[in-house]
Structures are given as C-alpha cells and as structure tokens.
C-alpha cells in the first residue's frame, strides 16, 4: 500500500493512499470530532462536525477528503471552530437534556463531540430549544426507537442498506421533519426488519437503544452457539449471569456482525428451566438424584448392553472435545460403532 505524507495541526503523519483525512487522523490517534462516520460504511459527510481547513484556504469535511501528498490540514482554524461549534450547538439545542436517564450516558458520541468543542450553558442559552416530539416505537422486543434523540447521522439507514441489504428503514419526509422510518411510519416490527440489531449497535446516541443494557463487568471471547457459521462473540458477564452479547470485530468469520439469535438469543443460559440436578425415573416419575446415584444407575445398565444392543447419539451442539469423548466411550467402552448424531437434520 502506497503511503503519503500530510500535516494535521502541525503534526506530520503518513497515511495510506486512498484513505481519507479523517481515517488518517484517527489511525494516528488524532481525534477529529465526527458523528455520522463509521468505519464499516461509505462516508456520508452529513453531520459536518468533521470540518477542517485544507491548505489554509478551503473548508472541507475530512471524512470524504482524500489524503494528498504534502497536504496541510488544520482542525483548529477559527473558521473551522466556529462552524463546528454552531453545528454541535444546533444539535444539542434540538436534543433532549435527559442524559442522566439515558442508556447511552457517558458512552454517547454527541456528548463526546459536545465536550470536545466546548459547549457551555451560556452559549446554549442563546438558542431556541426544540425537541421533536414523536412517540417512541417500542414494538421490537429487543430495542426501542426514540426519534427525539435521533441526530439523523444516517448510520442506521446506511447499515441496513450497505451492510445488511435489508432496507427496513430509510429517511422519511424532509427538512426539519426528516425522520428515520418505515413505510407509512409503521412500527418497525411491521416492516421487513430482521431485528439483527446492527443499527442499534452502531447508533452514536440512544435513538436506537437496547431495551435492556445492564453493564457487564467482564467480557469473554467465545463462539456463537447457533448456526454453523460460527460467529465470534463477546459474552458480557455480570457475576454468574450472561447479560449481553457483542459481535467480535476481530473475528474473520463475522467481523463483528451478528444475527438476531446470536445477539439477543442468550437468555436460555440463565433460564429457570435449566436442568440443575440429575433426574432418575422412580416408579414412573423423574425425580432429582445425586450424580453418584444417577451415574451408577447408568453404568450398571450400560454394562449389560455393550455391543450391538447399545447406541449413542452425540450432538452437533456440543464441543469437539465432548464429541470425541462420547465416540471414544462408545467405541472403546461400549465396544460398538453405533454412534451418530443429527448431522443430517
């Protein structure tokens, strides 16, 4: 990959040819505030928060600006700062001030840019506040859509289009009345939405927010237990409870993407129906028993049915190690090759 050298705020840095100024800056640990940019998506250039000055004369957004050899970029130019500040002030003036009760508090891109450009109560006071009043769409069991918090970065629309190719949502109406919605603004569950939650995962604010977002204490890298694709996941754990799942962006299989089952289908793990003790049938009914009792009963019976009277069915759900031992048990201990599983279903 060919490299070019450019200067941002006096800092000289190398960047891949064909990358954008914003990419170059972020790659070099240089933050340029931005809202509608997402690494997985084609730059849209709509929020205008990433404006910079190019070669000391031209104002441009950095997310669509290709790097050029010898380019000189300023993010601190007064004109840039003024445009950036008013733009963010406008967004905040039209955003509900409910951070304390917001699920994205402290993890919100709007908060981040606002504090970066130094928005103050004084500067905000001058503005006429107005927050769009639209009913929250809570039809989906996993996430809510709150238009009053939407900054119209379009990341959800582009995710549903560019990445998922589902197009359940798009821009609706125009101007200040623009919203993200479905045909006729029907509830999201009445659209072709597949509830994959990819848009929710990318929303920079809480316009698309999970219904439950308990804070996990640690994350464990693992593999999704559903279909054969084997998506890399990060299990969010709180105490002895799995409270969330995230796509693993480093995994080559799914690069962070998940489907509705993979992302939201984890609650069976801590479900009350889980079997927690062995059960043994006594007088026709299954009753709890100790491991010893249960295993001895099994051992006793299996010992009498070695060979062709016995068969084992392994599972396509359990690990390789589990399967290996079961077939070893069947072949070595039970002395038969009567082992199969539901590979064919």
């Amino acid at each position, binding site marked *: 990959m060919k490299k070019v050298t450019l200067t941002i705020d006096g800092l000289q840095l190398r960047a891949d040819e064909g990358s954008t100024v914003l990419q170059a800056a972020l790659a070099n640990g240089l933050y340029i505030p931005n809202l509608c940019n997402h690494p997985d998506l084609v730059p849209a250039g709509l929020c205008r928060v990433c404006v910079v000055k190019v070669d000391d004369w031209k104002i441009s957004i950095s997310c669509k600006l290709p790097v050029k050899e010898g380019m000189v970029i300023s993010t601190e130019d007064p004109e840039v700062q003024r445009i950036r500040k008013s733009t963010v002030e406008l967004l905040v003036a039209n955003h509900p001030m409910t951070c304390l009760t917001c699920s994205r508090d402290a993890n919100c891109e709007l908060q981040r840019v606002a504090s970066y450009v130094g928005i103050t109560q004084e500067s905000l006071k001058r503005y006429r506040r107005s927050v769009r009043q639209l009913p929250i769409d809570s039809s989906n069991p996993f996430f809510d859509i709150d238009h009053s918090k939407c900054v119209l970065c379009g990341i959800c629309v582009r995710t549903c289009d560019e990445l998922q190719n589902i197009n359940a949502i*798009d821009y609706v109406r125009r101007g200040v009345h623009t919203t993200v919605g479905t045909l006729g603004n029907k509830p999201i569950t009445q659209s072709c939405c597949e509830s994959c939650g990819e848009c929710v995962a990318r929303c920079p604010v809480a316009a698309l927010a999970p219904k439950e977002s308990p804070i996990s204490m640690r994350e464990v890298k693992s593999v999704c237990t559903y279909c054969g694709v084997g998506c890399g996941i990060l299990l969010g754990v709180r105490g002895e409870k799995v409270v969330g799942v995230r796509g693993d962006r480093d995994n080559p299989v799914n690069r962070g993407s998940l489907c509705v089952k993979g992302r939201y289908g984890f609650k069976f793990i801590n479900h009350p129906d889980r079997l927690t003790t062995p059960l043994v049938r006594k007088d026709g009914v299954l009753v709890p028993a100790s491991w010893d009792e249960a295993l001895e009963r099994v051992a006793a019976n299996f010992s009498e049915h070695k060979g062709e009277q016995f068969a084992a069915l392994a599972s396509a759900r359990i690990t390789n190690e589990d399967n290996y031992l079961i077939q070893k048990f069947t072949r070595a201990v039970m002395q038969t090759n009567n082992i199969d599983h539901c590979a064919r279903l």
Partner: protein
Amino acid sequence: MEERLQTVLAPYKGKRDMLIPILQQVQAALGYLPDDAMAEIARTTGLPESRVYAVASFYAQFRFTPRGKHTIMVCRGTACHVRGAEKILEETERTLGIVEGETTKDLEYTLETVACIGCCALAPCIMIDEDVEAKLTPKMVSEIITGRNTA
C-alpha cells in the same frame, strides 16, 4: 382500487428509476397514496418498501390521506407575500374552517399553500384546481368561495 392500481403499474415491472412518475400516476388514479398502494409499487418495481415511502414523502406533490374534490392552493410567492398573502391564507382558512394542509369534512376542498404559482404580477393570487384567481383581497376570497358553494 386494486384494478386501477394494477393497470397503472402494469408497464413498470422492475423499473426502479421510474418511481416518481409511477407515484404521480398512482396518485392521479387514486387521489392519494395509500400505504398498501406503495407496498404494491415496491413489489412491482423491486424497490424496498421503505425506499418508496422515503421518496414519496420527500416531494411536496405526494399525499397520504384522501383529498377533497377541489384543491385550493394559496400562493406564498414573494410577490404575493409582500402584497398580503398571509391575510389571504387566513381568510381562506377562516372561510373553509380548516387550516393549511387539511381537507373539509364534506371532502369538498383541500387547502394547501404553494411556493409560487408564477402569477407574481397579479399578486396576491390563489389557484382553485386549474383556475387562478388574481389580485385578491381577503374580502374577495370569502366571496369567491361562498359564491362557488351557493352556485
């Protein structure tokens, strides 16, 4: 409605870039764009339903609720504005008992405003269906409308 819709859509199977003309023709046929008509347009063209509505709701021409028999468009062009279009609009709203964008209960009139009819020299003016009423005063407006109703 089904048949009318199908006749309009017949020539457009898979023609995604004809969406706007399609919407115009469907609205001409049905008077407005019901949700299920837009869903049918999506199926015919192969566009996502959301895209059909996204485009339809972007343009001022398209309506999603039934319209009155007649449309009164009050011109809000600059010339009309400086010659008192505001007062014309208010008087029209008062006479019809509805506000801009609404339709009278008897489905006789739908009241809209338009950026400019292009009769600036004859400002202020309104357009009732295809006829332009020019050089109006608030008084004339109420007379014209009540006159139409009695006639």
